[in-house]
């Protein structure tokens, strides 16, 4: 199926998310859509999938102009979408999930499980997507869950498959498996639109790469284009992909974690006997696919999750099971993983957010009454020092871009006396300029003798920033390695191999 977008324009108020976008997806080809977060990729996909209606332009399928009022119509025209956040019912089986919405039934409207399972087996076999139809989805690893999403689209006779940032949650091995699937689907004649912001992936798998920036198509290029060239197209300037940093001169341990066990919300041991040291003046990067206990580990450090057993020692002081307040007072700087959930109050001003965890500290308040003058003065200073782009300190923090929201958090944490800094996914969803900025701030802290723990699922970030790299898998540290270690080795460790085994 050939899908053409002609002059698609989508506006939100006065903001133009897509500006006259042309795109031509050919059958049997993998078409990559490359762009930074906020470039307009997801908007374009939502237009294509009928979630949003464009102001201008048309969608042409096999020479016929179509309009989709909703995603159901898009599905009926053979467009399938694999969302970044899976749209699966966790407690249902694979078969139940795949047939959800058009269930085969027996008499009295009973679900025909056998027919459903047979359907899965047929599609699985046709495209080489092995998965057990009777397995319950929540018990499957992420990679297989994604496969179920793909199966679901295929069993609805999708001819064009849109994959929205499908690699964000996968291990390197799972990414490779996904790429193989994409290639075999293309070989079977399906059109594939692969959305990502990762340069390596588009070069590995794409037939055509279309780069978009700020709602415009920058150009379509072949996969032989160099990474540096692609990066330049994406951001519109030359980007340094590595972080310039001097050799570290680590001091003594500032953070010591010993045999830590932390349970997740379901009561399972998400952090399972973890011991880790971070020294002054070094960046410890904690690598791992998301959901392997990093979140719970950081929450335990921040006093937001109960420690089951084991100890956390900060500069010689036992801080196991302290409250968030006590941890803040002990000088723990925390850049949370989900900045809009834990780091900011979106309906408060930039100024208020800059004192969010120090509202009672002098001079911001005196005897229970806030000193708004001091709060404003602090905000003016931080906005200047940390180059936060906002029209006013009284502006709601929700009106800032993601990068500037993160700068607000970074400014708040780094402007108070710290003894240690934990940063969780500090550059997720940020544009390249903000990433560079945040990275430089982390390195500066480390140069000034701070101990820094960075948790990231971006391998590039881990390799670029870490003075040492700890890899976490299923609640355990599989090893602590040097940043010169190969990506493949770290990838294997992220999948559970221990440091020694991975080297072999």
């Amino acid at each position, binding site marked *: 199926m050939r899908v053409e977008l002609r002059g698609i324009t989508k506006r939100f108020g*006065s903001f133009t998310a897509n500006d006259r976008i042309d795109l031509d997806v050919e059958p049997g080809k993998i078409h990559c859509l490359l762009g930074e977060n906020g470039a307009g990729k997801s908007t374009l996909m939502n237009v294509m999938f009928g979630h949003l209606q464009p102001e201008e332009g048309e969608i042409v399928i096999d020479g016929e102009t179509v309009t989709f009022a909703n995603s159901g119509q898009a599905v009926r025209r053979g467009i399938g979408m694999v969302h970044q956040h899976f749209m699966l019912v966790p407690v249902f089986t694979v078969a139940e999930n795949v047939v959800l919405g058009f269930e085969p039934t027996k008499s009295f409207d009973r679900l025909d499980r056998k027919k459903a399972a047979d359907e899965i087996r047929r599609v699985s076999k046709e495209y080489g997507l092995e998965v057990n139809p009777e397995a319950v989805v929540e018990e499957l690893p992420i990679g297989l869950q994604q496969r179920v999403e793909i199966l679901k689209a295929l069993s609805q006779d999708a001819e064009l498959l849109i994959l*929205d940032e499908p690699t964000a949650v996968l291990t390197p091995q799972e990414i490779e498996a996904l790429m193989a699937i994409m290639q075999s689907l293309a070989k079977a004649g399906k059109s594939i639109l692969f959305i990502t912001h990762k340069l390596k992936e588009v070069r590995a798998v794409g037939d055509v790469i279309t780069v978009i920036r700020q709602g415009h198509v920058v150009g379509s290029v072949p996969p032989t284009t160099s990474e540096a060239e692609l990066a330049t197209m994406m951001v519109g300037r030359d980007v340094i992909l590595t972080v310039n940093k001097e050799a570290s001169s680590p001091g003594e341990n500032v953070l010591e974690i010993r045999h830590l066990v932390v349970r997740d919300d379901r009561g399972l041991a998400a952090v399972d006997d973890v011991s880790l040291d971070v020294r002054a003046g070094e960046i410890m990067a904690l690598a791992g696919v998301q959901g392997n206990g990093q979140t719970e580990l950081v929450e335990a450090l921040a006093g937001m999750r109960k420690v089951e057993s084991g100890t956390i020692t900060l500069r010689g002081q036992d801080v196991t099971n302290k409250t968030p307040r006590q941890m803040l007072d002990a000088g723990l700087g925390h850049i949370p993983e989900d900045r809009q959930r834990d780091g900011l109050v979106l*309906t408060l001003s930039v100024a208020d957010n800059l004192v969010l*965890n120090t509202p009672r500290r002098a001079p911001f308040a005196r005897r229970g009454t806030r000193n708004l003058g001091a709060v404003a003065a602090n905000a003016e200073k931080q906005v200047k020092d940390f180059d936060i782009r906002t029209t006013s300190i009284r502006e709601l923090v929700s009106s800032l*871009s993601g990068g500037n929201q993160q700068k607000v958090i970074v400014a708040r944490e780094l402007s108070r006396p710290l003894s240690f800094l934990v940063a969780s996914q500090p550059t997720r969803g940020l544009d390249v300029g903000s990433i560079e900025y945040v990275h430089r701030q982390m390195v500066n802290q480390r140069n000034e003798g701070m101990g820094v723990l960075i948790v990231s699922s971006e391998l590039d970030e881990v390799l670029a920033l870490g003075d040492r790299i700890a890899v976490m898998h299923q609640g355990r540290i599989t090893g602590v390695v040097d940043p010169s270690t190969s990506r493949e080795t770290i990838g294997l460790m992220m999948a559970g191999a221990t440091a020694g085994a991975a080297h072999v």
Partner: protein
Amino acid sequence: MSDVAVAPARPRRRSLWSRFSAKSPVVLALLALVLGFLIGALVIIFSTSAVLDAWRGIFHSWDGLFHALNVTFNNVGAAYRDMFTGSVVDPPQFWHSLTTGKQWDYSLTPISETCTYATPLIIASIAVGIAFQTGVFNIGANGQAIMGGIAGAAAGSLVQLPAIIHIPFTLLAGVIGGLVIGAIPGLLKAYTGAHEVIVTLMLNYVIAFFLIFALLSTALQQPFQSNDISRTMHSSAQLAPLFGTASGLRVSYGVFIAAAVVIFAWWLLDRSSIGFDFRVTGANPHAARASGINARRVVVLVFLVSGGLAGLAGVVQVASTTHYIDGNFLIGNAGIGFTAITVALLGRNRPMGIVWGSLLFAALGVGGRQMQAATGIPLDLATIIQSVVVLFVASPVLVKEIFRLRSSAASGIQLATQGWGS
């Protein structure tokens, strides 16, 4: 996904309307008020037989149409005029007082009545609004107010003290009454996770029956009475009328208490450290926790403040109007604790918004009585207008659509109901 979430840049050119509305949600409230009166007019038209009869005649001649319009405007106009003169001021009467210096009591009665009703309502609505801003849905202001009223009536009638001590003592008793009742859902939510909506809602019934029990007890019941009515407060405990008993104007020194509560609420929410904790918790409990705010402490504190203020509303109402509490008081439709929820919504939980909302509700109620007496249109019309206004205030998108407002005023509107989810 995040691609879409980029904040739209500010539009370069705006119509006068939208410039107006984007800056102030007040405009939105005023438009909702206009819609309320328009719909109220429709109700009058369709429920008044004289108007309907006139409209049946429009096909006979042009005169018939003019007649119908005339009758319509007369009826609707009379209803709203009576509502206005009954609750704010009657211009000819006022002019008479102004020129002759006489009958001031008569001229000021409408506005005095409105303020009398608004006084406890402001306090109760602020009690509710503070809780809403903290993300806590205190549905129990009515029960807390009743308990404040009981405690106040008891303190005012059972003890003999000089006025200078007796009034503060009575008010304090009311505050403590409400505070104790507020503490129950606060503690239950903080330490057991019980949902405050259920607890406060159910406590309202408990306290309503406690009121009946207390009123029939020998301690509190009016001597030589068999029905449910309490002893009358000593004059030393009453909030006296501002212009003296002889004036006949009921508006009391309670307005100063309401004013003090407004200032306190402004300080608490906008200036105090604990109020900052309240607002952070209300807007984003996750961020509140990560910022070291003790959620339990906040929940208990906000219930103490909210309950205490609701109790104060109860005692102020008792001490400034009836001077006794009876079985009809503060129960059912008359319950200011329930009206307070609506008013807090209308005022977007802001102290000044609540003041205007309370005055509006009080005026509609007081004016509605005058209207009923003069035109025979039932008082329920006032309730309809109140409801429609709140309905429209709660759906800003609809109002914007009706008045064709382009730019988003919705960004300034926070739903007050976020407490439901927690």
